[in-house]
């Protein structure tokens, strides 16, 4: 578990990080919490020549709300998300997911931006952010771009980010009143990736009909899966047990999971359905109480 040798650079500002990225190009990797990158380097699955550490860039750790958007710096740690009163009050789904990531030591280091940018289908925040309708801000030599999370992933470990771009911020539309959310994750133990997980964010309108809903799955395909079909099924309707059942079946049908030690693909697809069933019921219950 010894990585190949590399140069370490600590960036103080976003601009400095971008300069370093530009200077070393493909041979550089951004180091935020290091919870995925460092194990890969220790296993020598990755051997970047330069690490650009952004974990101390103050601007990347901000967490605030403005103009109906919750704006989270990419280097905010899971622990910061977990302890944020703003998120707890206005967007509890993020903290609920963060609490199910790793263990306290991992959460003290791991960051939201890293979790999103790494492109590992086992990571939890991508489906959460898709369910929330979030976007990310990427900054590079050509300036800033806003990328919706839905469509951000192109494949396994592959995102819309360009090599010289840095993910700087996550923007989440503040959920309106009468919203409810749930992140249901089936895993063997603390610290494990999901066998299957489902993120649901919904808002109720007039007559308890579903005004907005986002549903996405974790770790049951090479990329996080947005369940547009299930969203369309539920949007505008009063959500009943029958509809939840249908949505769960859509979830199962959408999966493209590999066989692994969590179980064969069929099991993981069934569990995606089960987690969706439970997440929908939970989110609905919370929205009614909100």
């Amino acid at each position, binding site marked *: 578990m010894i990585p190949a*040798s590399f140069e370490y650079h600590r960036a103080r500002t976003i601009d400095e990080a971008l300069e370093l990225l530009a200077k070393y190009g493909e041979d550089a990797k951004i180091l935020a919490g290091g919870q995925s990158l460092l194990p890969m380097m220790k296993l020598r699955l990755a051997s970047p020549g330069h690490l650009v550490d952004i974990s101390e860039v103050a601007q990347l750790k901000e967490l605030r709300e403005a103009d109906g958007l919750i704006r989270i710096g990419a280097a905010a740690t899971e622990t910061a998300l977990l302890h944020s009163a703003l998120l707890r009050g206005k967007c509890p789904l993020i903290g609920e997911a963060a609490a199910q990531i790793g*263990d306290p030591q991992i959460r003290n280091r791991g960051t939201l931006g890293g979790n999103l940018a790494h492109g590992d289908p086992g990571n939890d925040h991508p489906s959460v952010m898709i369910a929330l309708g979030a976007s990310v801000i990427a900054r590079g030599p050509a300036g800033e771009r806003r990328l919706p999370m839905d469509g951000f992933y192109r494949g396994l470990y592959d995102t819309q980010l360009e090599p010289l771009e840095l993910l700087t911020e996550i923007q989440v539309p503040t959920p309106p009143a009468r919203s409810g959310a749930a992140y249901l994750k089936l895993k063997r133990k603390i610290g494990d990736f999901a066998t299957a997980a489902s993120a649901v964010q919904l808002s109720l309108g007039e007559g308890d009909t579903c005004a907005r809903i986002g549903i996405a799955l974790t770790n049951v395909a090479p990329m996080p899966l947005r369940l547009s079909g299930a969203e369309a099924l539920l949007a505008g309707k009063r959500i009943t047990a029958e509809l939840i059942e249908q949505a769960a079946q859509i979830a199962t049908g959408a999966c493209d999971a590999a066989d692994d030690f969590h*179980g064969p693909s069929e099991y993981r697809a069934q569990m995606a359905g089960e987690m969706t069933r439970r997440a929908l019921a939970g989110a609905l219950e919370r929205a009614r109480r909100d």
Partner: protein
Amino acid sequence: MDAASAAETLNKDHLMGIGNARKRKEDPRFIQGKGRYIDDIKLPDMLFAKMVRSPHGHARIKSINTQKALGLPGVHAVLTANDLKPLKLHWMPTLAGDVQAVLADEKVCFMGQEVAMVVADDRYIAADAADLVEVEYEELPVIVDPHKALLPDAPVIREDLAGKSEGAHGKRTHHNHIFTWEVGDREAADRVFGQAAVTVKETMTYQRVHPSPLETCGCVASFDKVKGELTVYLTSQAPHVVRTVVAMLSGIPESSVHVISPDIGGGFGNKVGVYPGYVVAIVASIVLGRPVKWVEERIENLSTTAFARDYHMTGELAADRNGRIKALRVHVLADHGAFDACADPSKWPAGFFSICTGSYDIPAAYARVDGIYTNKAPGGVAYRCSFRVTEASYVIERMVDVLAQKLDLDKAEVRLRNFIRPEQFPYRSSLGWEYDSGNYPAALQKVLTAVDYSGLRREQAEKRARGELMGIGLSTFTEVVGAGPRKTCDILGIAMFDSCEIRIHPTGAAIARFGTKSQGQAHETTYAQILATEIGIPSDVIQIEEGDTDTAPYGLGTYGSRSTPTGGAAAALAGRKIREKARKIAAHLLEVSAEDLEWQGDRFQVKGVPDQAKTMKEIAWAAYNNLPEGMEPGLEAVEYYDPPNLTFPFGAYLCVVDIDRHTGEPKVRRFYALDDCGTRINPMVIEGQIHGGLAEAFAVAMGQELVYDDSGTLQGASFMDYFVPTAVETPYWETDYTVTPSPHHPIGAKGVAESPHVGGVSAFSNAVIDAFAHLGVTHLSMPYTPWRLWQKIHDLGLDKRSG
């Protein structure tokens, strides 16, 4: 206060002797990070070694090119089998009578096998250099299934054994066959089966698992060329035997070999054997004349050093219609991997598997174990159990449940009908053991009452009617621990005794040294308590040392729950020798005859005259200045203890599990563990041992498995994949006890730390299977991961949603 309770107060409160829940003396250093483990050993000019390992399960080595690695600045050596050949160290003997390649000699037989060792200035250079060693392989067909290994045309795994029809344990019947071990009267058992009213048969695999101690294996070897002396610090549960082996292999006089086991971060059987890494590090140090450190990485530990189990078992019971068992037959295909490096006493190739009649009075029994080579890592150690006792206990505890289901009898009732009765002890089993003591019905009854067993069964019936899955698992196990005796048990010809050497200082403080070696068992705490009670000085002033072969008396080490049965007995007897000398000194001081004195727990008193007494503290001082004429000064004793028999701890465990029908997740709602280890030395330490063993049993039953794919690649050899539960997953434990002392042990104590593992695994397994028993399910393979349980649920149609 009467005399008895005064003595109890003195022993427990003042001396903190046997029965006192004193805090662990080791813990202040461990919990402050002040332990001294192998990786804390740093010697001047020390170099670092890194193993180059086979990426293939089975392959011929066509060439090894070390030039690039040697060219890297900071690299001092790259050793291969060719470098070890002149020393005849490229192969080494195993504890099981086989040989094992130290560095691969022309072919590799398992993934991760040791091929070369790089020695460099630091770990980083060593890691880079290991990547530069070029090995050209020609892949060979791989066998990971022991059943397939015995097919006539199966590839030959061990070409070095070509033509050898005899192994260390008799005839070999196939090129991948190691031994056949038979015990019991086959014909008698067959006769009973032929006539029995009821028979049951079940095939079960006890999966390959790994002891996975938190600290991996490692060593620091330091050869002093000037003095010709070799010092080896290593993670060994048995340092004295290692020194003997090193002396024999190296030709260095045993007096010039110093083996030191410092603090050890868990062993669980993984640190009994001698591994290639140790041997090559020693050679490297001798060749280079500098200290060499080699420490396994986690992946190396999980994939190359000593696994456990991998027993493929078929159990059969014959019984009458009342469920009274008449005979047992067991057959095992034992997958030992590529080399038979099983750690058992020499004459016991399947360890103490013949304890498989368990707690039951079974008149006829026959067991046969066939050891098999496969392209998997070598090992087969006892993971938190006495040699193969977990496997044995598992097969009988499962079969008793299978029989109960067949006869539609309650699983507790079948046990009660078949227990060896208290008045039958000492009990000779049909497979040859003499059980020392036990009271099985009392233990089980106590558990059944404590948990309201009939209430639980009623609740289960109601839940089954609603389609819910609730299981109740019982395990009423008996262990056999504490090897020797020497006439039947040895390691490489060295009898399995153990030892204690104690010296009382003038002020009445003491140091005692043992041939055992704690890896977390708290010997520094509990041995001192035995000595405190025996000698009458407080345990706080008794220093316990182990692990340094220069200072400690020779012993066979700590594994198979043998420390208390052997080392603990040696402590008690050494203490009694001290007391006998002390009596003579006291008589001299009090000017009476020794026969006129009586022992009062911490002093000798003139019979009936309480103010005429000498405390042990006073006697200790006198031992250095005021002795009877002709007596040698000092107050010391040595005891080498050869146990007359093993000890047979037992217990009754009950587990209640609820299984989520839609995810397959098992939730252990209740676990009640009653243990009987005879005399209890430190109740708190025992409880800690029980908790730890149950947690490991939970891990094995619910998730641990070393899985090889058909190419011989080990799947998931890291803690990301290999299941080590945290406090969050681990159930809550309720503990209880009865006390049935061992009649042959000086203080009546038996081993305890492995009972929870032995008994726990079958309790979990029986509980999970019991949840499906009403549907005709008689067995499910471990580990009970949610997906496996869900698969069963799904196959049975139990996950359908109504409406």
